């Protein structure tokens, strides 16, 4: 670890990043007004932006100070926190690229290097970033370690294998057996053993020593943050709901990419307080919430604003989503006193690693708990674990609950897949059917 790099990092952390935040604050005051269909925006948005900007900004000065790990969104990052890795989430970065409507450009770079267009767009964007060095976040530090788990998909493993090969850096993989029925004792033992076997490698790469007390402290923070996040989502049961799921897609970022750090917990405490305040005052995310909807699958990052406005103008609010719930759903399995086995239970049973019977039950409960009137399913080319089975899930839910629903075919971050006219027609038909059902 070089002294000059360390000093530079400390200077940027203490002075550079705050200065940048101040500049951003000035810029924000000149931002465009909120469309009239929406209620007042969340004040926490500003803090969220600060946290994320700071995280990406500081990452530029990290090489030589801390070891950098690129991590998948479902990986048990708590273990890395113990070794003080600076973590970057390529999925989060790809979503950012998608939200900036630059997905096609980055995907095109990867495709130009002969990666198939049929691959996940998060992966193609990340590979496009690696090949070009481009990033809307300025610059991402190169990883010293890759850490992935196939509990969200097998794709991340193939993708990280490709990076590992390209950059010649170690890849730690947490193999999470898919829960076809229920987790077996063998599954738990296997995952718990893998976690423990990672320690010597992490010690070697990071140069730091493992202490169980550190892991316990990180797990506690992680659990607290996830529970707070879960409570924030639960608060959307209120009528009117204090935020939309499109807000939640953004506020999800800290629980995904800063989980286990104090900054995430602090942030969710602030957000929870604001949400509770809005609930107590009856402030809704949209001005006149008439219909309440559930969203299934990952966000369509380049169309979040379009979709939010489309539905808000029709007095429809997304009050829950299987996607945002994923970082809160299994956290009660975590037991600080039994870290290895309980991490196996927590990370092994997340929605995308669980069978469709489980997902159907979960969706039914959410529809009931959040007083949902209709369902929108995003079928995405990029995510097979989320999309394969959706047609039958829709049928099962629509039939048994008599719930209007629609499936739209798009992609999470590659805007070339979006067909506006076709999707708008489908959504308008859905809205009509929802209104008819409720009139009837």
């Amino acid at each position, binding site marked *: 670890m070089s002294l000059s790099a360390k000093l530079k990092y400390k200077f940027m952390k203490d002075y550079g990043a705050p200065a940048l935040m101040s500049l951003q604050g000035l810029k924000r005051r000149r931002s465009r007004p909120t469309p009239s269909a929406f209620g007042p925006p969340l004040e926490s948005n500003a803090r969220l932006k600060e946290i994320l900007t700071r995280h990406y900004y500081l990452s530029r000065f990290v090489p030589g100070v801390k070891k950098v790990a690129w991590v998948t969104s479902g990986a048990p990052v708590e273990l890395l926190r113990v070794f003080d890795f600076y973590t970057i989430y390529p999925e989060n970065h790809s979503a950012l690229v998608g939200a900036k409507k630059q997905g096609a450009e980055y995907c095109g770079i990867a495709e130009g*290097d*002969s*990666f*198939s267009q*049929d*691959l*996940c767009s998060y*992966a193609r964007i990340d590979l496009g970033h690696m090949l070009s060095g481009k990033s809307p976040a300025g610059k991402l530090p190169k990883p010293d370690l890759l850490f992935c788990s*196939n509990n969200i*998909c*097998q*794709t991340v*493993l*193939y*993708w990280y*294998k*490709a990076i*590992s*090969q390209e950059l010649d850096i170690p890849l730690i*993989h947490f*193999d999470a*057996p*898919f829960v*076809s*029925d229920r987790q*077996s004792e*063998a*599954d738990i*033992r*296997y995952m718990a*053993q*893998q976690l423990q*076997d990672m320690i010597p490698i992490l010690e070697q790469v990071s140069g730091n020593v493992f202490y169980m007390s550190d892991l316990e402290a990180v797990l506690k923070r992680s659990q607290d943050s996830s529970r707070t996040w879960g409570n924030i989502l639960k608060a959307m049961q209120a009528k009117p709901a204090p935020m939309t799921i499109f807000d939640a897609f953004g506020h999800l970022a800290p629980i995904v990419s800063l989980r286990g750090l104090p900054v995430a917990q602090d942030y969710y405490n602030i957000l929870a307080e604001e949400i509770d305040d809005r609930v107590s005052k009856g402030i809704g995310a949209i001005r006149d919430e008439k219909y309440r909807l559930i969203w299934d699958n990952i966000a369509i990052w380049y169309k979040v604003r379009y979709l939010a406005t489309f539905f808000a103008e029709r007095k429809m609010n997304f009050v829950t989503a299987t996607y945002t719930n994923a970082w809160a759903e299994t956290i009660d399995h975590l037991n600080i006193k039994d870290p290895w086995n309980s991490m196996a239970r927590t990370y092994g049973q997340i929605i995308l690693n669980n*069978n*469709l*019977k489980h997902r*159907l039950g979960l969706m039914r409960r959410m529809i009931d708990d959040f007083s949902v009137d209709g369902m929108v399913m995003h*079928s995405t*080319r990029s995510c*097979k*674990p989320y*999309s*394969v*089975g*959706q*047609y*039958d*899930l829709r*049928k*099962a839910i629509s039939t048994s609950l008599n719930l209007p629903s629609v499936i739209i*075919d798009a992609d999470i971050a590659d805007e070339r897949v979006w067909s506006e006219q076709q999707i708008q027609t489908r959504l308008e038909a859905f809205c009509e059917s929802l209104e008819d059902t409720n009139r009837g």
Partner: protein
Amino acid sequence: MYPFDAIVYLQRDDHYKRSDLEQRAQIDAMSINDTKDKVLKIPDRSDYLRDQRRSGQEIMGVLPALYPRELLWAFNILPAEIWDPPGEILLANVHLQASICPIVKRGLEFILKSPEIINSGYLFPHTCDSLQNLGTQVKDLIGVPVPVYTFYNPKGEFNKASKRYYSEILFNLQKTLEKSHGLLSQNQLKAACELGHKIDIRRQMLHAALMEDRFDLSNREYFQLIRAAEYMQGQDYLDLLNHVEINEQIGVAPRARLLVTGILPPGDDILNFLDESRVRIVSEDLLSGSRRIPIVEMDQPDDPMEYLVERFFLLPPCSTKAGGLDKRLQYLKKLIAKSRCHGVLFNTVKFCEPELFDQHFLIKSMKVMGLPVLNLETELQPGLSGQEKTRIEAFLEMLDEGVPV
């Protein structure tokens, strides 16, 4: 001279102990058949399975790809593998998106037709995201009149934990099957492993002979033979393999020698076209083929469960197991060297993510080695399109110009 300088061999360089394999195979073959036919009679898949069913055989539909077939045999279950059933995809389109791979779609189409030959259930080994979800979709949402089983294959770089885990899930599968098929006899399992062992040895030997031009099967016949393993009883299949005559002499040199890699072999029309063009596929790295045969000759099964665990971890590198890319490349380099192939044909199933990720690195590496590569994408539809024909012809012309001496 090969078109690249350095060939790095795998650590276990005893991949094919040919003399041992030949000797053992000859003994097996002698006991089965003294008068070999020149013409290989491979039973038709549907006819064979219907006959089996009529005779009261328990048949389980098995989706791709890696599963302990010996365990099923020991329960007297015949695995009928479902890779690419022919016909139009109609029913499955109601359940699956357009961007789902045709193996998954054809598999579901087959299941939705409720085929009478499948009377013992379906087994979904864990292969990829799409097949993973298809298993739960069929079991939990669509519903079928027979039981649905799943089997997780460990992923990534293997270690002690994966070995122990595989052993435990094998045992769990055994216990699950015992509920419907009665207690498993260890003698039966041992006998099944011994049969599987013989098949593996014969398959290894045939692959070695293929690489050395020592039998007379056409490309199409060879893959029909390999794929008969997907539906035949173990003993019938071993008999069939033993009917294949391996020549002492090396055959006539073909126009060009190809290695094919991917999930499935090219369709019959492409294979016929290659036959007509005097092009020989001299080695294969297919998930439906040699990736399911151990990389080295295994010892005779003593403890059958230990044998099955060992066998799984001795299978060649495969995209669906998600091991290191470099290991896979080294393995392919070895096949390339042994088979003296002039080019590599990537037979790519549309939307197959595991293969598509690996392919990028492999194709680039092969090009660096100076090895011509042809990448054909298939949706498993029959026929040979004009475009495919033109691309193959252009590839062959390129090989004609650069075939090494």
